[in-house]
């Protein structure tokens, strides 16, 4: 039987209102480390299990104070001028990398995180954080095409249908994110998502400019709403956003194109200057526990990198193609990495020209 789930909020869209505090007070136990039994957790909204933090407190006596952010820009801006007192944060991989390069994260003590062994092999190392020195994987997902089954021929499992074809002219929505869009256009052309060669970037730009007349809109991360209301039949979107509308409309589906795509990963990291680093390590270890991890995944329905947790879940989750693309497809996916200011500028100038064309 399917358990009742709260409607998930769109993790990447702007959410009004922040500042929630974990409820539940039990008396602190004695005999712990010198740190006071508190940990300040800065997390996305609706991005933790219903009872996870209470369970953690029951198990360790450490109280979790959770504060919420709406997007990576907000998280980054808040920590840029110094840590205001957070012990544990959840940046997405490109921001994790940015923060590592800027010296905003402190190295993890792997000895305090034995549950790292639960993490599947693919996530044991990461290009943006070699040997996982600064971050642990929390949840991951992909970028792909959300589509209306009844209005599309078969499964649009290629970027061709949104980048290089007029078959669905006037029914396509792109996403207004320069790095992401240029990355997957590069991917379609057979280059790396993170290609730095100006000629390759120019080829991707030409491809997108040529396709522009076939677009309906370049959406502000609301492609899922455009699909749901029938404005478009194909939308480039994050898998979590499409999953959300799939619950309301059976006719919607999601696919990661066969050429490969962007894969993102939200990470657990300790910012420099954290007042309770030891407690933060304990919380990280708890979040990577098999049962705790399964409870979180069950509630928020994002893909868990925790192999042990995934094995505890039912088939409806484990085999959902919107959550877990096939290994074959996944092998072709790449994560965004920071490739320097020059590349950043090439990509953004190209995107400005595409929008102006």
């Amino acid at each position, binding site marked *: 039987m399917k358990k009742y789930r709260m409607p998930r909020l769109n993790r990447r869209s702007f959410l009004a209102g922040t500042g929630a505090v974990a409820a539940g007070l039990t008396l602190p136990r004695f005999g712990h480390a010198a740190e006071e039994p508190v940990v300040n957790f800065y997390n996305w909204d609706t991005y933790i299990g219903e009872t996870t933090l209470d369970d953690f407190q029951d198990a360790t006596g450490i109280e979790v104070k959770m504060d919420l952010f709406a997007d990576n820009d907000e998280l980054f801006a808040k920590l840029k001028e110094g840590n205001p007192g957070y012990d544990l944060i959840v940046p997405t991989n490109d921001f994790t990398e940015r923060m590592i390069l800027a010296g905003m994260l402190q190295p993890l003590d792997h000895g305090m995180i034995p549950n790292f062994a639960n993490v599947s092999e693919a996530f044991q190392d990461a290009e943006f954080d070699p040997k996982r020195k600064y971050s642990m994987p929390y949840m991951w997902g992909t970028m792909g095409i959300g589509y209306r089954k009844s209005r599309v021929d078969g499964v649009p499992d290629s970027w061709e249908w949104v980048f290089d074809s007029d078959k669905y002219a006037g029914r396509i929505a*792109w996403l207004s994110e320069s790095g992401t869009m240029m990355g997957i256009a590069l991917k379609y052309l057979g280059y790396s998502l993170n290609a730095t060669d100006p000629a390759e970037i120019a080829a991707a730009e030409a491809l997108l400019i040529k396709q*522009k007349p076939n677009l309906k809109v370049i959406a502000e991360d609301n492609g899922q709403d455009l699909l749901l209301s029938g404005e478009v039949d194909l939308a480039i979107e994050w898998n979590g956003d499409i999953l959300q509308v799939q619950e309301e409309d059976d006719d919607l589906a999601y696919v990661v194109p066969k050429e490969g795509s962007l894969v993102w990963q939200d990470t657990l990291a300790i910012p420099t200057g954290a007042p309770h680093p030891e407690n933060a390590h304990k919380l990280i270890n708890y979040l990577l526990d098999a049962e705790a991890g399964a409870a979180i995944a069950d509630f928020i329905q994002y893909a868990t990198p925790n192999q042990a947790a995934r094995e505890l879940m039912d088939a409806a989750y484990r085999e959902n193609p919107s959550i877990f693309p096939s290994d074959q497809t996944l092998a072709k996916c790449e994560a965004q990495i*920071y490739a320097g200011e020059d590349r950043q*500028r090439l990509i953004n100038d190209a995107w400005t*020209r595409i929008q*102006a064309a």
Partner: protein
Amino acid sequence: MESWRRNPLFFWIVGLPPTLWLVLFFLVPLGLIWLFSFSDKRGIIDIELTWTLANYARSLEWLYLEIFLKSFWMAGATTVIALLVGFPIAFAISFAPPKAKPWLLLLIILPFWTNLLIRTYALIAVLRSRGFVNFGLEWLWDQGNWVLSLAGLGGYQLLGERFEPLELLYNNFAVVFGLVYVFLPFMVLPLYAALDRLDRSYIEASLDLGAGQLRSFFSVVVPMAKAGVVSGVIITFIPALGSFLQSDLLGGPDSQIIANVIERQFKSANDWPYGAALSFILMYLTFFALALRAVLSRGNRDAEGL
């Protein structure tokens, strides 16, 4: 009542907080952004003040000039439409019975009580292919077909085979429509203020002396409302130029205006120096336009011998 001038303590107590506020929360941040515009980006978060002009030079590339021109065009169209729509409204309110005036003004101000974002989303629901306007049109289309079939012409499909919704959203029309919708009160209120103060005897004199209604309107009312028109135009045009929400949410693939480019520099592009330079260019242009207006109006006054 001049005593406060002789009481410096009182003067300072009253004058200091707003001055501090202005300096701390307006001039200092603005100064910082101004310094950014002469800075160089060094890596991910480091910005170094080098007094470079490269950011400004980059803004003069044809790509960005074109976007500037487009933005001015859109803001200009918005202002003209708001003026054409707003003037009759303001005129009507100023001639309404005194009891009705506050209510009419309330109707103008009422939309401000709802958040801008929500109003813009509401427009999406009105304009989209499956929105209220198209639902209304489809209903009319159905009725039309029904009437035709009553008249025995049902088989000819005179109104087309099936209803084709109008594409009202995701284009430049929708952006200008959204901007007019949002900024119309900014136009109506100063116009109303000017028209309400207008001395009615001038209009009566004009009519008595044989000028028609139209001529009286254009030769008497409009010139006397000029101050209101000018301030209405300015406070509509400037925010319309800097508004990125409408083109983000209502615009199509070719609705990028300079405000979108600036927004992107501060967010995804993470290039604050360039974003700062672009915003200051916008500000310089605005100052230039205001100065030009001041000079021109002084020239007029001199010519009229005032």
